[in-house]
């Protein structure tokens, strides 16, 4: 077949009709304070890992909420679970527990294993 130099690109849309939004409910059950997050970014601003890598906890949390799990497990492995983010959160969200539980749930979903 002739190669025209075009290919079909993957859709970039977060499709709320097909995305797995239920997975977030499991997280809420484990860490109820995750509902309170208002995405102010104080956590990712203070994050030690963010200063050296492209890790962004706030974004990971939001992607998880939206059911966008691709590549998330690898991202979460950049976190050292130091808990500094928890100290600065104005809404008292247990950020550390969110990461810990997201890792477990992603593992259950057969995304990349916890190292």
């Amino acid at each position: 077949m002739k190669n025209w130099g075009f290919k079909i690109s993957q859709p970039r849309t977060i499709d709320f009709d097909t995305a797995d939004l239920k997975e977030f409910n499991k997280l809420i059950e484990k860490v109820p304070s995750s509902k309170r997050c208002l995405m102010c970014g104080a956590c990712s601003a203070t994050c030690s890992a963010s200063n050296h890598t492209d890790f962004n906890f706030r974004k990971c949390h939001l992607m998880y909420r939206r059911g966008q799990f691709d590549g998330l497990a690898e991202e979460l492995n950049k976190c050292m679970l130091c808990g500094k983010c928890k100290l600065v959160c104005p809404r008292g969200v247990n950020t550390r527990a969110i990461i810990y539980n997201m890792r477990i749930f992603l593992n259950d979903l057969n995304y990349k294993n916890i190292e």
Partner: protein
Amino acid sequence: MKDKEILIIGGGPAGLEAAYNLAINGIKVTILEKDPSIGGNIKKWVKLFPDFGDAAEVRKIFEGKIKHENITLHTDAEVTKLYNDGGKWFVKDTKDNTYSAAAALLATGFEAFDARRKEELGYGIYDNVITSVDFEEMYKTGKILTAQGTIPKRIAFLNCVGSRDEKVGNHYCSRVCCINAVKQATEFKEIVPDAEAFCFYMDMRMAGQFYEELYRKSQEKYGVIYIRGRISEAAATIDKRIQIKSEDTLTGLPLRMTVDILVLMVGIESSASTTELSTQNEINGEYGFAKSLGLYNSDNLTKKEGLFLAGSCKRPLTLPETVADARSASIQIVNYLNIN
């Protein structure tokens, strides 16, 4: 028939506006103000949002209004006790004077949040971290300068300091700081047009008449830059500037910036007198504010007969809201003293 007299605790906008309206209705008013002069929190302000109205002028109008034969003003009179005895209301001040009347109005207002409680933001540690109240103090001189006396090239305002913050126990929004940041950033750019002004916010709450217009003008005419992210740390550099860390949440990238001055937009907390006197009378509500009987039909009444509330002792209010609330309290008090 009750004696036509009232004690007003607090000589700020709420107390003064109520005093005037009660006096012209033939009620003898005694105002007790803890400071040496009247005006309350507007004493600290230069210009008022959203129209840059002159705070000193507003204060002068109040001064004129309370020059009435029915009004007695006691300054330097901090009320420490408020109680009812045999249907009459009594207050005691720090000088051990006792006053009494048929009714009492609590108009003890608010206090600005003590920014030292947010240690990570460096207030009280680094000289170039100031509060919005300090900004006003400096603005009185007509100049905004760093602690080293230089003209700042870059300034940052941080919203929600002491508001919407579980870590300091204040879940509520103080309502006035967003628009005040817009006002102060605009004032700064008027003085130093070449400098950069940044505003860090979680949400910009422009829910007042002309607020949105001022917000828009600050961007369009004055070039104030708004960044959505909460500053989580501030530290001094070797040359005494302030380095701040935030996330630029809309790009999703961490942000670092060195500024000459960091202004913390401190929130509204209940004043010490508000908390103390409302607790004494079991009308203390959430966060140390005084609690009215009902939000819709009895917002100036309390569960104690003859004890009324006006202004920001109840919750964070803007100046026009406070003054309107004081007028509303006045008519309730007039009715109470005439009917009962």
